[in-house]
């Protein structure tokens, strides 16, 4: 009888491990930061969105085993317009490129590049581009579009792995939703840190704390649903992956990392803060845990991915 341990893990072959988890985490934070920017139009949030998307792109680029061939691949695909728009990888390249430009516009509006670096204005086209920045970054209609786009980018990071049909644990629509909720929780944690630094006001912080409790609750409910669906799936690969998470080799990462440290401790600290008042060190620590929880969640789901066994 074949045991679950005989079923091959995708990370041995496809090598979608921690680096891809970091990529998905960073892209999720960038997307949900852009989403949150509609309500919290502060410079640190715009900078966080830009930095995370650029870092995410750098991480995924470094993961490519033939990164040097990217210009040639683009060249040949352009020649006969054979870009595969049915691939979430291709869509991701497009979405992340646009996301980077959006984040750059939002950050540039706060940076006031023209005022800080007058020499830039002597470059061709730069004055025109900089003149457009406030118009784009402060348009309410466009900010709605940017927020929606941020949501789409975060969801994309989930759809990317759901399309990998070789790994049945991932073939569920729960993942994009789970990614959106968990990235939202991470951005709320980021806003808590901004509040501690004095970058957002007290009233916003109370809303953020309440939202974080609700968001963590939804995240846990979705995670347990995901695990239940995996454990009861008809596919042996999905069952094996979920079993590895629930009681197998990845159980410590899931139960201690994702559930306890990444969700329950931050929720407990949030509830304590709401009832007894804020203790800055504790809130900062809990926010860091909540941020890290998003990364551990992605890593655990990726590392648990297994192929279906081939049986006659």
């Amino acid at each position, binding site marked *: 009888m074949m045991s679950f341990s005989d079923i091959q893990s995708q990370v041995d072959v496809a090598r979608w491990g921690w680096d891809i988890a970091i990529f998905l985490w960073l892209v999720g934070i960038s997307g949900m930061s852009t989403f949150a920017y509609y309500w919290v139009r502060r410079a640190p949030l715009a900078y966080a969105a830009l930095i995370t998307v650029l870092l995410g792109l750098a991480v995924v680029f470094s*993961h490519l*085993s033939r990164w040097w061939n990217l210009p*040639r691949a683009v060249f040949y695909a352009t020649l006969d317009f054979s870009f595969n728009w049915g691939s979430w990888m291709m869509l991701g390249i497009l979405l992340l490129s646009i996301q980077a430009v959006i984040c750059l516009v939002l950050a540039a509006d706060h940076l006031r590049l023209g005022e800080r670096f007058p020499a830039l204005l002597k470059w061709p086209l730069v004055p025109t581009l900089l003149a457009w920045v406030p118009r784009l970054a402060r348009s309410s209609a466009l900010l709605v579009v940017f927020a929606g786009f941020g949501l789409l980018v975060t969801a994309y990071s989930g759809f990317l792995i759901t*399309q990998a049909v070789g790994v049945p644990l991932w073939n569920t629509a729960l993942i994009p939703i789970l990614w959106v909720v968990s990235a939202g929780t991470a951005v709320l944690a980021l806003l808590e840190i901004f509040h501690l630094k004095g970058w957002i006001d007290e009233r916003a912080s109370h809303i953020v704390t309440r939202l974080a409790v609700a968001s963590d609750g939804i995240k846990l409910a979705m995670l347990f649903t995901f695990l239940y669906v995996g454990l009861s799936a008809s596919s042996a690969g999905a069952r094996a992956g979920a079993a590895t998470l629930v009681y197998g080799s990845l159980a410590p990462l899931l139960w201690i990392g994702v559930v306890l440290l990444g969700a329950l401790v931050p929720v407990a600290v949030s509830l304590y803060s709401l009832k007894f008042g804020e203790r800055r060190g504790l809130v900062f620590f809990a926010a860091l845990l909540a941020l890290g929880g998003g990364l551990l969640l992605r890593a655990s789901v990726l590392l648990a991915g297994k192929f*279906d066994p081939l049986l006659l």
Partner: protein
Amino acid sequence: MTVEAKKRLAHLFDTTKCFGCGACTVACTATNSPDLMLYEDPGWHSLATNIRRVEFNLRDRPGLLLVQCQHCESAPCVKTCPFGAMYNDAATGLVKLDERRCIGCSYCVAACPYNVRWKHPKTGLPMKCMGKGCEQLLAVGQLPACVQACPVGARAFGDLNDPGTEISRRVRNGRTVRLLEAKGTKPNYFVVV
């Protein structure tokens, strides 16, 4: 995307004849990746070959299955490849790799339900059947290396659209199955059971 090919080249593997000598796997590496004859693939913990060896026990009976690219008509690797590096060859029906368009994202590796790809340690390419060496053999009218190397005729390769080929005859007359058909991949790899 499903492509109607002029030919429908397919592989057949007969589990009732194979006794697991490994000649096909060694011939595959010698023909397609001769520079890696002494290299162990870290994923499969085996020779860097396009043929994966699956051993299992079914009702206390040991079983052996040798799998390779199924040349699916509706291949997940083709659907997921961002720049069209993976494609169904219209002339033969084989799933091929255009190296010029591959960026090494490994999406095709994770997308393949048969787990029959491995990464080349030097080029970063997602390797699979059929390799360049076997393509050259086909071009001069020979059979793929694994088929030629099998001492007991457990393998066959040819055009399923031609009823006169050996593979057509064996698929017609034998008891064959295709792997993971429920995935909707329409594989062109037949297993005699």
